[in-house]
């Protein structure tokens, strides 16, 4: 295996504008990843890629292995088999560069409820080595973008569920990552808040060229033109543009395509009959 490093520290920073991405390096590449908790297999030979400036939905029921995959990408667990790369940086090697390019919104809430909105952002900035002055500028900027500027001094506890989620997304973007992972980001939100969050993230893809991996179990969050990975019982059943997957499954919509795919996986006999 040869690795060609394009980055050149100290000299002219390379233009990594996603649309001119040299050699089409994926924002996230998962290659043959398997994971087991003791005897229980959570992921089996999972491979797929997320392109820069794309919205990739990771669709799976609860227990499909989505959160395990997220734990592996964020290095909470060690990789047992396979390889994960973020813009070509292998995450199991000194992970600094890979994690620097990554922003994450976890399924569970990870804000300090007793701290203010700004304090939460400044803490995150410090974890990325962003000096205080710069951190303040950036947090003011992101708060304006998510329309929470007037709540900067409020305790996070006093925010609504949707506002907390928006804040978490803003926090994940504070260090200007190129890849954003969201694990069931709309769980527990009402319809309007869900639509707001989803719209906001799709806007990030278009306007800032961020690669997004959006894990969900909700079909209506996926739309035509997205990339889709269907994960079921730890295996990738389908991977590609949504429309192709629907066509290949000769289904009417994503809902029935998913049913067909997973039905076939659960009982191969019934698919042939």
């Amino acid at each position, binding site marked *: 295996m040869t690795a060609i490093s394009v980055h050149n520290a100290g000299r002219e920073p390379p233009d990594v504008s996603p649309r001119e991405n040299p050699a089409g390096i994926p924002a996230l590449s998962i290659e043959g990843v398997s994971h087991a908790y003791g005897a229980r297999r959570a992921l089996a030979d999972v491979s797929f890629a997320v392109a820069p400036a794309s919205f990739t939905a990771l669709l799976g029921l609860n227990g499909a292995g989505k959160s395990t995959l997220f734990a592996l990408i964020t290095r909470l667990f*060690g990789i047992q088999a396979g390889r994960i790369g973020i813009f070509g940086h292998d995450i199991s090697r000194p992970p600094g560069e890979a994690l620097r390019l990554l922003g994450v919104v976890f399924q569970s809430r990870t804000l300090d409820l007793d701290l203010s909105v700004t304090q939460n952002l400044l803490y995150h900035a410090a974890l990325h080595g962003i000096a205080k002055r710069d951190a303040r500028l950036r947090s003011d900027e992101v708060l304006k973008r998510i329309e929470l500027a007037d709540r900067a001094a409020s305790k996070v506890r006093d925010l609504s569920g949707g506002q907390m989620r928006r804040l978490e997304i803003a926090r994940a973007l504070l260090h200007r990552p190129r890849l954003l992972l969201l694990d069931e980001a709309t769980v527990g939100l009402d319809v309007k808040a869900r639509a707001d969050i989803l719209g906001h993230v799709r806007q990030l893809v278009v306007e800032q060229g961020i690669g997004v991996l959006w894990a969900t179990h909700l079909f209506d969050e996926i739309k035509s033109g997205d990339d889709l990975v269907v994960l079921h019982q730890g295996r990738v059943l389908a991977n590609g543009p949504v429309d192709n997957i629907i066509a290949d499954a000769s289904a009417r919509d994503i809902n029935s395509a998913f049913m067909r795919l997973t039905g076939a996986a659960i009982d191969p006999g019934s698919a042939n009959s």
Partner: protein
Amino acid sequence: MSSTTVSGNQSGFSFAQYITCLNGIVWREALRFVHQRERFVSALVRPLVWLFIFAAGFRQVLGISIIPPYETYILYDVYIAPGLMAMIQLFNGMQSSLSMVYDREMGNMRTLLVSPLPRWYLLFCKLVAGTAVSLLQVYAFLLIAWFWDIAPPPIGYLTVLPALVLSGLMLGALGMLISSGIKQLENFAGVMNFVIFPMFFASSALYPLWRVQEGSPLLYYVCLFNPFTHVVELIRFSLYGQTNWISLAVVFCCTAAFMIGAIYAYDPSRGLARRGPAGGET
């Protein structure tokens, strides 16, 4: 197979960024501490109950002969003060460990661990933050104890500081090591029973070791090999401007060992990898 990498406009971290990270973690710990006033109060009340009630009761029962570092006969209250300072740090270290388990369940630990800075450094910062909080607690205790006629030489308040830093790090690292093995919040009761109480009682915190030896030679050796005994003695001697070199060496080695253990346990390719996902997620 060939792979190509793209990176941002910088690689590696500067010294200033390491410092920013440390400041951020300590600052957050301090803020959380300020917001949890009950924690501060209970951290103070616990040793004060021992001092005001237990020590007062035992004052007549236990006479303490002249043993280093003391130069005169001392009251029992004076004897147990260093042990209580160590107790504050012991509880604080274990409580920080509890907060690690809590953080991990709530996900805050996850935000810490996805920082691109080296993981050992993040855990070290967390330890420094916990130690800083324990120092606040100990000095608040010393202030109240001063009104109770526990008055070490003024210079002692300064010379005890490095000892407290080292012992705070040691007990914090021990807590961190234990927390890596705990899955759930409820297990703190187990930590109380199996770590805090045995460590505290089988040490020189409440009684000098020569007295223990008179009673039970076996217990004497247990106390002698208990690192907490050396934490107490290190604090006791430094509070009187002296250095107990054996205790210093023991505490230093234990700090290093526990830290290495904790960093090893939080390495994703080793410790945590063996366990299932947290919080019922899959």
